[in-house]
Protein backbone atom coordinates (compact mmCIF):
# COMPACT_ATOMS: atom_id res chain seq x y z
CA UNK A 1 0.00 0.00 0.00
CA UNK A 2 2.80 2.43 0.79
CA UNK A 3 4.54 1.95 -2.57
CA UNK A 4 3.55 4.30 -5.31
CA UNK A 5 2.44 2.22 -8.26
CA UNK A 6 4.43 4.43 -10.61
CA UNK A 7 7.68 3.36 -8.94
CA UNK A 8 7.10 -0.27 -9.76
CA UNK A 9 8.04 -1.97 -13.03
CA UNK A 10 5.29 -2.25 -15.60
CA UNK A 11 3.30 -5.34 -14.74
CA UNK A 12 3.09 -8.14 -17.23
CA UNK A 13 -0.56 -8.53 -18.15
CA UNK A 14 -1.91 -11.58 -16.35
CA UNK A 15 -2.88 -14.36 -18.71
CA UNK A 16 0.03 -13.74 -21.09
CA UNK A 17 3.10 -14.06 -18.91
CA UNK A 18 5.54 -14.86 -21.78
CA UNK A 19 7.77 -12.12 -23.08
CA UNK A 20 7.81 -11.13 -26.72
CA UNK A 21 9.01 -14.33 -28.50
CA UNK A 22 11.15 -12.55 -31.12
CA UNK A 23 13.18 -10.68 -28.55
CA UNK A 24 13.73 -13.91 -26.59
CA UNK A 25 14.96 -15.89 -29.60
CA UNK A 26 17.66 -13.40 -30.42
CA UNK A 27 19.20 -13.65 -26.96
CA UNK A 28 21.57 -16.36 -25.76
CA UNK A 29 21.21 -15.53 -22.09
CA UNK A 30 18.25 -15.84 -19.80
CA UNK A 31 16.61 -12.61 -18.81
CA UNK A 32 16.15 -11.90 -15.14
CA UNK A 33 12.55 -12.67 -14.36
CA UNK A 34 10.34 -9.78 -13.53
CA UNK A 35 8.78 -10.11 -10.07
CA UNK A 36 5.48 -11.30 -11.42
CA UNK A 37 2.56 -11.29 -9.06
CA UNK A 38 3.92 -8.60 -6.81
CA UNK A 39 1.89 -5.82 -8.38
CA UNK A 40 -1.61 -5.61 -7.02
CA UNK A 41 -3.44 -4.06 -9.90
CA UNK A 42 -6.44 -4.91 -12.01
CA UNK A 43 -8.82 -7.81 -12.30
CA UNK A 44 -10.96 -9.42 -9.59
CA UNK A 45 -8.56 -8.76 -6.71
CA UNK A 46 -8.40 -5.01 -7.18
CA UNK A 47 -12.00 -4.46 -8.18
CA UNK A 48 -13.39 -6.38 -5.21
CA UNK A 49 -11.12 -4.26 -2.99
CA UNK A 50 -12.32 -1.02 -4.65
CA UNK A 51 -15.96 -2.03 -4.33
CA UNK A 52 -15.42 -3.06 -0.70
CA UNK A 53 -14.02 0.41 0.10
CA UNK A 54 -16.70 2.37 -1.76
CA UNK A 55 -19.58 0.36 -0.28
CA UNK A 56 -17.97 0.54 3.16
CA UNK A 57 -17.76 4.35 3.10
CA UNK A 58 -21.33 4.62 1.81
CA UNK A 59 -22.69 2.31 4.49
CA UNK A 60 -20.74 4.16 7.20
CA UNK A 61 -22.22 7.55 6.38
CA UNK A 62 -25.69 6.05 6.11
CA UNK A 63 -25.13 4.51 9.56
CA UNK A 64 -24.35 7.93 11.06
CA UNK A 65 -27.63 9.36 9.72
CA UNK A 66 -29.56 6.21 10.64
CA UNK A 67 -28.41 6.36 14.27
CA UNK A 68 -29.40 10.03 14.56
CA UNK A 69 -32.86 9.57 13.04
CA UNK A 70 -33.56 6.48 15.13
CA UNK A 71 -32.50 8.41 18.25
CA UNK A 72 -35.59 10.58 17.66
CA UNK A 73 -37.75 7.80 19.14
CA UNK A 74 -36.40 9.05 22.47
CA UNK A 75 -37.66 12.59 21.69
CA UNK A 76 -41.30 11.96 20.77
CA UNK A 77 -43.45 9.77 18.49
CA UNK A 78 -44.34 12.88 16.47
CA UNK A 79 -40.68 13.81 15.87
CA UNK A 80 -39.75 10.30 14.76
CA UNK A 81 -42.76 9.90 12.47
CA UNK A 82 -42.20 13.32 10.92
CA UNK A 83 -38.65 12.42 9.91
CA UNK A 84 -39.48 8.87 8.80
CA UNK A 85 -42.33 10.17 6.65
CA UNK A 86 -39.94 12.41 4.72
CA UNK A 87 -38.07 9.19 3.79
CA UNK A 88 -41.20 7.58 2.34
CA UNK A 89 -40.86 8.70 -1.25
CA UNK A 90 -39.63 6.96 -4.42
CA UNK A 91 -36.18 8.57 -4.39
CA UNK A 92 -35.40 7.36 -0.88
CA UNK A 93 -36.98 4.01 -1.79
CA UNK A 94 -34.45 3.59 -4.58
CA UNK A 95 -31.77 4.77 -2.14
CA UNK A 96 -32.77 1.96 0.24
CA UNK A 97 -32.40 -0.52 -2.62
CA UNK A 98 -28.91 0.85 -3.31
CA UNK A 99 -28.15 0.60 0.42
CA UNK A 100 -29.19 -3.05 0.57
CA UNK A 101 -27.18 -3.71 -2.59
CA UNK A 102 -24.11 -2.10 -0.99
CA UNK A 103 -24.55 -3.96 2.31
CA UNK A 104 -25.11 -7.24 0.45
CA UNK A 105 -21.88 -6.87 -1.52
CA UNK A 106 -19.85 -5.66 1.48
CA UNK A 107 -21.07 -8.53 3.65
CA UNK A 108 -20.59 -11.28 1.05
CA UNK A 109 -17.20 -9.95 -0.02
CA UNK A 110 -16.27 -9.69 3.66
CA UNK A 111 -16.92 -13.42 4.00
CA UNK A 112 -14.70 -13.92 0.95
CA UNK A 113 -11.92 -11.90 2.63
CA UNK A 114 -12.24 -14.05 5.77
CA UNK A 115 -11.96 -17.19 3.63
CA UNK A 116 -8.89 -15.79 1.83
CA UNK A 117 -7.29 -15.10 5.22
CA UNK A 118 -8.16 -18.28 7.08
CA UNK A 119 -8.86 -21.02 4.50
CA UNK A 120 -5.68 -22.76 3.37
CA UNK A 121 -6.73 -22.71 -0.31
CA UNK A 122 -8.55 -19.36 -0.01
CA UNK A 123 -5.89 -17.29 -1.78
CA UNK A 124 -5.74 -19.75 -4.68
CA UNK A 125 -9.50 -19.54 -5.15
CA UNK A 126 -10.06 -15.81 -4.57
CA UNK A 127 -11.13 -15.19 -8.18
CA UNK A 128 -13.65 -18.01 -8.17
CA UNK A 129 -14.96 -16.78 -4.82
CA UNK A 130 -15.37 -13.28 -6.28
CA UNK A 131 -17.73 -14.65 -8.94
CA UNK A 132 -19.57 -16.69 -6.29
CA UNK A 133 -19.99 -13.44 -4.31
CA UNK A 134 -21.42 -11.71 -7.39
CA UNK A 135 -23.78 -14.63 -8.05
CA UNK A 136 -25.06 -14.73 -4.46
CA UNK A 137 -25.42 -10.92 -4.53
CA UNK A 138 -27.56 -11.10 -7.68
CA UNK A 139 -29.74 -13.81 -6.10
CA UNK A 140 -30.12 -11.69 -2.93
CA UNK A 141 -31.19 -8.64 -4.91
CA UNK A 142 -33.56 -10.63 -7.13
CA UNK A 143 -35.26 -11.74 -3.93
CA UNK A 144 -35.30 -8.33 -2.28
CA UNK A 145 -35.79 -5.77 -5.06
CA UNK A 146 -39.28 -6.72 -6.37
CA UNK A 147 -40.80 -6.90 -2.89
CA UNK A 148 -39.15 -3.68 -1.75
CA UNK A 149 -40.18 -1.82 -4.91
CA UNK A 150 -43.77 -2.96 -4.33
CA UNK A 151 -43.57 -1.56 -0.78
CA UNK A 152 -42.23 1.73 -2.12
CA UNK A 153 -44.38 2.19 -5.20
CA UNK A 154 -47.50 0.52 -3.79
CA UNK A 155 -48.82 -2.55 -5.49
CA UNK A 156 -48.87 -5.84 -3.67
CA UNK A 157 -49.07 -6.15 0.09
Amino acid sequence: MSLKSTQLPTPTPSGSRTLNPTSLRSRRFSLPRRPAGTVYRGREGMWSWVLHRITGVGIYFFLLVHLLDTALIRVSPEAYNAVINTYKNPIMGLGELALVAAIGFHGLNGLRIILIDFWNVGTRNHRLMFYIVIALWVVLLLGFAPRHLMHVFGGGA
Partner: protein
Amino acid sequence: MAVTLDDPRTKNVVRRRGGRNWEKWGWIYMRVSGLVLVVLIFGHLFVNLYAGGGVSALDFAFVAGKYASPFWQVYDFLLLWLALVHGANGIRTLINDYSISPVGRGLRRLLSPHFLMKSALLGSTVVLLILGTLVIFTFDPCPATSNADLLPSFCAAVQ
Protein backbone atom coordinates in the same frame (compact mmCIF):
# COMPACT_ATOMS: atom_id res chain seq x y z
CA MET B 1 32.75 5.15 16.09
CA ALA B 2 32.73 1.68 14.72
CA VAL B 3 29.90 0.78 12.41
CA THR B 4 28.68 -2.77 12.43
CA LEU B 5 27.22 -4.09 9.22
CA ASP B 6 24.82 -6.97 9.01
CA ASP B 7 25.85 -9.99 7.00
CA PRO B 8 24.67 -9.79 3.40
CA ARG B 9 21.21 -11.22 2.84
CA THR B 10 20.22 -10.75 6.46
CA LYS B 11 16.49 -10.33 6.64
CA ASN B 12 15.40 -6.83 7.51
CA VAL B 13 13.40 -7.62 10.62
CA VAL B 14 11.79 -4.67 12.35
CA ARG B 15 11.60 -5.59 16.01
CA ARG B 16 8.73 -4.20 18.00
CA ARG B 17 9.48 -2.89 21.44
CA GLY B 18 6.93 -4.90 23.32
CA GLY B 19 3.45 -3.59 24.04
CA ARG B 20 0.18 -4.83 22.72
CA ASN B 21 -0.11 -5.15 18.93
CA TRP B 22 -3.23 -3.04 18.45
CA GLU B 23 -3.19 -3.29 14.67
CA LYS B 24 -3.37 -7.06 14.96
CA TRP B 25 -6.36 -6.83 17.30
CA GLY B 26 -8.00 -4.35 14.94
CA TRP B 27 -7.48 -6.81 12.10
CA ILE B 28 -9.02 -9.64 14.16
CA TYR B 29 -11.88 -7.39 15.27
CA MET B 30 -12.84 -6.56 11.66
CA ARG B 31 -13.16 -10.26 10.83
CA VAL B 32 -14.93 -11.39 13.99
CA SER B 33 -17.36 -8.46 14.07
CA GLY B 34 -17.88 -8.76 10.31
CA LEU B 35 -18.94 -12.36 10.70
CA VAL B 36 -21.45 -11.49 13.44
CA LEU B 37 -22.66 -8.41 11.55
CA VAL B 38 -23.49 -10.41 8.42
CA VAL B 39 -25.97 -12.40 10.52
CA LEU B 40 -27.29 -9.46 12.59
CA ILE B 41 -27.74 -7.06 9.66
CA PHE B 42 -29.39 -9.71 7.51
CA GLY B 43 -31.94 -10.20 10.32
CA HIS B 44 -32.29 -6.43 10.80
CA LEU B 45 -33.00 -5.86 7.11
CA PHE B 46 -35.34 -8.84 6.92
CA VAL B 47 -37.51 -7.69 9.84
CA ASN B 48 -37.55 -3.99 8.94
CA LEU B 49 -37.55 -3.96 5.14
CA TYR B 50 -38.80 -7.35 3.94
CA ALA B 51 -41.26 -8.93 6.41
CA GLY B 52 -44.69 -7.43 6.95
CA GLY B 53 -45.29 -4.08 5.30
CA GLY B 54 -41.60 -3.44 4.67
CA VAL B 55 -40.29 0.10 4.73
CA SER B 56 -43.75 1.60 4.21
CA ALA B 57 -44.88 0.23 7.61
CA LEU B 58 -42.07 1.84 9.64
CA ASP B 59 -43.22 4.32 12.26
CA PHE B 60 -42.90 5.00 15.98
CA ALA B 61 -45.40 2.27 16.89
CA PHE B 62 -43.38 -0.33 14.97
CA VAL B 63 -40.04 0.61 16.57
CA ALA B 64 -41.60 0.98 20.03
CA GLY B 65 -43.22 -2.43 19.66
CA LYS B 66 -39.79 -3.91 18.96
CA TYR B 67 -38.02 -2.09 21.80
CA ALA B 68 -40.64 -3.20 24.31
CA SER B 69 -38.88 -6.58 24.13
CA PRO B 70 -35.43 -7.07 25.73
CA PHE B 71 -34.50 -9.30 22.79
CA TRP B 72 -34.58 -6.42 20.29
CA GLN B 73 -32.94 -4.08 22.79
CA VAL B 74 -29.94 -6.41 23.10
CA TYR B 75 -30.04 -7.09 19.34
CA ASP B 76 -29.86 -3.41 18.43
CA PHE B 77 -27.32 -2.73 21.19
CA LEU B 78 -25.01 -5.33 19.60
CA LEU B 79 -25.71 -3.90 16.14
CA LEU B 80 -24.89 -0.38 17.32
CA TRP B 81 -21.57 -1.24 18.94
CA LEU B 82 -20.32 -3.84 16.47
CA ALA B 83 -21.33 -1.87 13.35
CA LEU B 84 -20.21 1.58 14.47
CA VAL B 85 -16.81 0.40 15.73
CA HIS B 86 -16.38 -1.74 12.57
CA GLY B 87 -17.24 1.27 10.39
CA ALA B 88 -15.09 3.70 12.35
CA ASN B 89 -12.11 1.36 12.17
CA GLY B 90 -12.65 1.09 8.42
CA ILE B 91 -12.68 4.88 8.07
CA ARG B 92 -9.51 5.00 10.21
CA THR B 93 -7.89 2.71 7.64
CA LEU B 94 -8.93 5.08 4.85
CA ILE B 95 -7.53 8.11 6.71
CA ASN B 96 -4.24 6.25 7.20
CA ASP B 97 -4.18 5.30 3.51
CA TYR B 98 -5.12 8.59 1.87
CA SER B 99 -4.07 11.32 4.30
CA ILE B 100 -0.45 12.30 4.91
CA SER B 101 0.59 11.77 8.51
CA PRO B 102 1.30 14.98 10.45
CA VAL B 103 4.92 16.10 10.17
CA GLY B 104 5.26 18.71 12.88
CA ARG B 105 4.72 18.65 16.61
CA GLY B 106 2.46 20.46 19.03
CA LEU B 107 -0.09 22.81 17.43
CA ARG B 108 1.07 21.99 13.89
CA ARG B 109 0.27 18.38 14.59
CA LEU B 110 -3.05 19.11 16.28
CA LEU B 111 -4.22 21.25 13.32
CA SER B 112 -3.09 18.84 10.58
CA PRO B 113 -5.96 17.43 8.48
CA HIS B 114 -4.89 13.90 9.43
CA PHE B 115 -5.20 14.58 13.15
CA LEU B 116 -8.41 16.63 12.78
CA MET B 117 -10.09 13.84 10.78
CA LYS B 118 -9.10 11.22 13.33
CA SER B 119 -10.31 13.42 16.18
CA ALA B 120 -13.65 14.01 14.43
CA LEU B 121 -13.95 10.28 13.79
CA LEU B 122 -13.21 9.34 17.40
CA GLY B 123 -15.48 12.10 18.75
CA SER B 124 -18.47 11.25 16.56
CA THR B 125 -18.06 7.55 17.30
CA VAL B 126 -17.98 8.01 21.07
CA VAL B 127 -20.93 10.45 21.02
CA LEU B 128 -23.06 8.13 18.86
CA LEU B 129 -22.20 5.06 20.96
CA ILE B 130 -23.27 6.83 24.16
CA LEU B 131 -26.36 8.39 22.53
CA GLY B 132 -27.48 5.12 20.95
CA THR B 133 -26.95 3.10 24.13
CA LEU B 134 -28.94 5.63 26.18
CA VAL B 135 -31.77 5.67 23.62
CA ILE B 136 -32.05 1.87 23.58
CA PHE B 137 -32.09 1.41 27.36
CA THR B 138 -33.94 4.54 28.56
CA PHE B 139 -36.65 4.31 25.93
CA ASP B 140 -40.33 4.44 26.92
CA PRO B 141 -42.61 2.81 24.31
CA CYS B 142 -45.71 4.48 25.81
CA PRO B 143 -44.88 8.13 26.57
CA ALA B 144 -47.78 9.60 28.59
CA THR B 145 -48.08 12.93 26.81
CA SER B 146 -48.50 11.60 23.32
CA ASN B 147 -51.32 11.07 20.91
CA ALA B 148 -52.47 7.48 21.57
CA ASP B 149 -52.92 6.80 17.83
CA LEU B 150 -49.16 7.01 17.34
CA LEU B 151 -48.34 4.47 20.06
CA PRO B 152 -48.11 0.68 19.80
CA SER B 153 -51.41 -1.07 20.45
CA PHE B 154 -50.37 -2.56 23.82
CA CYS B 155 -50.09 0.95 25.31
CA ALA B 156 -53.87 1.12 25.73
CA ALA B 157 -53.70 -1.75 28.24
CA VAL B 158 -50.78 -0.14 30.10
CA GLN B 159 -52.27 3.33 30.49
